[in-house]
């Protein structure tokens, strides 16, 4: 199979999976209790008002018809108008994607930079104090739910120490004095482009706690997987061969075994991103981070059908795309899959 046809097949799969995601979220959002109509119109509406709202939202038509017209629009990238903001969902998403990207990307980098070395140290020092410490901490970390970590960090670093701001992306003074203009949506970068150090440090300070929460909640997963994969590699016969030929243990571990661990770990990075998307929904809500996760939570609680389905689809698409890239990367670096 050529690389071209492999990518083609994967892209086709991606479209099919996305159609499935859209279908499931479309119907799930419909079976949730409550109706957007109540949200749209005021207190004690008349029957005529309800009817008018239903027609405006397209809810007067039968469910299959609604579904089909939604599918056709979605294929064009049009998820309709958000019922709560009144703007096209895709615009809302565009405005918030930067915030989520900043949060997840930073956390992802930290998780990989910290988690992989920890897992490797743990595996190499199997059953020794270093390993037991790493394992104890990661089990404790995995046992704490994300929201709990977030709230504890808020209590400690804002409540007790006052080191970092409680929530948001920027201090309101900076946000509303009109001097700051987001371009990329990544405030840390935007502030650098603007050349404003005070904004940069403010954005950075706001980033610390949410990133720490998301990192801490994902770290145990990556550490454990790395440890297990590395331990499996250390049992391989080719590792014994290297030892049998007098190669230094550190060289065997950090050259031979590490490469054999890192290559399959690439695929884990893709899965970690999915895990992180789940976490970001909670983290954004706790830290009032104006990203897609918080937007999704609010959309669901307000029965905002178009926004719910739109955000879910975009998040699912990003997950699928990242995993496609990761798999291609894996093919590029594993010598056994290269040229095949």
């Amino acid at each position, binding site marked *: 199979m050529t690389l071209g046809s492999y990518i083609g097949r994967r892209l086709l799969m991606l479209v099919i999976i996305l159609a499935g995601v859209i279908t499931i979220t479309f119907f799930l959002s419909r079976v949730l209790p409550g109706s957007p109509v109540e949200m749209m119109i005021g207190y004690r509406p008349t029957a005529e008002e309800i009817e008018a709202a239903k027609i405006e939202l397209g809810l007067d038509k039968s469910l299959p018809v609604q579904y089909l017209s939604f599918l056709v629009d979605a294929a064009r990238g049009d998820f309709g108008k958000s019922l709560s903001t009144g703007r096209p969902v895709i615009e809302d998403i565009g405005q918030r994607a930067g915030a989520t990207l900043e949060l997840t990307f930073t956390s992802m980098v930290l998780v990989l930079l910290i988690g992989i070395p920890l897992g490797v140290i743990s595996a190499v020092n199997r059953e020794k104090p270093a390993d037991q410490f790493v394992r104890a901490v990661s089990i404790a970390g995995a046992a704490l739910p994300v929201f709990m970590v977030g709230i504890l960090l808020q209590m400690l670093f804002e409540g007790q120490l006052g080191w970092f701001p409680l929530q948001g992306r920027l201090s309101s003074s900076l946000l509303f004095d009109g001097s700051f203009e987001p371009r990329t949506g990544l405030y840390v970068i935007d502030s650098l482009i603007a050349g404003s150090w005070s904004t940069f440090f403010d954005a950075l300070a706001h980033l610390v706690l949410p990133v720490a929460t998301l990192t801490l909640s994902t770290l145990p997963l990556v550490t454990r997987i790395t440890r297990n994969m590395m331990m499996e590699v250390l049992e391989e016969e080719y590792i*014994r061969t*290297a030892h049998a030929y*007098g*190669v230094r243990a550190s060289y065997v571990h950090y050259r031979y075994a590490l490469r*054999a661990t890192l290559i399959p770990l690439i695929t884990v990075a893709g899965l970690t991103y999915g895990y992180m998307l789940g976490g970001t929904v909670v983290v954004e809500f706790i830290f009032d981070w104006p990203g897609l996760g918080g937007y999704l939570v609010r959309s669901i609680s307000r029965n905002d059908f178009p926004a719910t389905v739109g955000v879910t689809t975009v998040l699912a698409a990003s997950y699928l795309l990242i995993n496609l890239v990761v798999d291609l990367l894996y093919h590029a670096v594993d010598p056994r899959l290269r040229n095949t």
Partner: protein
Amino acid sequence: MTSPALDFRGLKIDVPGPAGPLPLIRDVTLSVGHGEIVGLVGESGSGKSLSALAALGFAPADSRVSGQIRIGDFEVIGAPADRLREVRGRRCAMIFQDATKSLNPYFTLGRQLSDVVSLNRGLSHRDAVDVVTQNLADMNLPDPGLMVGKYPHQLSGGQLQRAMIAMALSCEPEVLLADEPTTALDVTVQAQILVLLRELARQRNLSILFITHDLGVVAALCDRVAVMYAGTIVETAWCTELFANAMHPYTRKLLATAPVLGRGRATLPNIPGRVPELTDRRPGCLFAPRCERATELCREVRPLLLSHEPGHAAACHHPHRIDEVTAREDIFP
């Protein structure tokens, strides 16, 4: 007499079990002289590979190793990891059974082999690659210059096995441990490799412990043979002597199980009974339950490996005698 190149004395390896230690190796006493090729034969699980690995200081996790293993004047058992590196590869190299699993799939052949050479012989990477290329050429591998840039999965089993042997020889060791190096190869390649090993033993005074279950290979290659059963050496002898006058009843049966051309498939013999379990704590001879010569003595007292003839030792209370001609039909009535 000078000390042998490789010497096992009373090697025992135990692993902890639910009801006391389980003996993986019960008693291995064996020596390989300089330039000598010794075959180590026995059924799967008799402890052949384990003994060879122990000579490089490898033992299963949690196991307890006792006895003595010397490579020249180096005492392996009890040596700390950094001292073991002095012998591993440099003085004693091992050719592993499955070359496809024993070479790292993520590195090119040249990289793996040159790493070993440059580490063990203090050569620069460039010089090491030259040495490796020459070694691969010595193994009759075509296009060695191309071969160093290949990954293991791009080569055949035979090519990998020869690369593995090239890697072992590149360190210029005194002792070579060969764990069924030809089992996975086709007969013509096997013959080439056997001839090569023989030449090396002669030219470089290389001592070889050759593990196999193929008695034909032993006959073609080895000077002496040691037979293993249930973690114990039960007989050692000169190769020709063993094939002509095996003393231990197990050896006789093992020899008789080798398929003979022209005898037909209907009579493929096997040894009745089963290899004793690790949990078997009987005091007597471990082969007694499968041996028709066994007496009360055999069931109560474990026989020691004793010389019955010059250069011919057997651990048996009732060894077959040289003058005792035994037809195949007597062994498998």
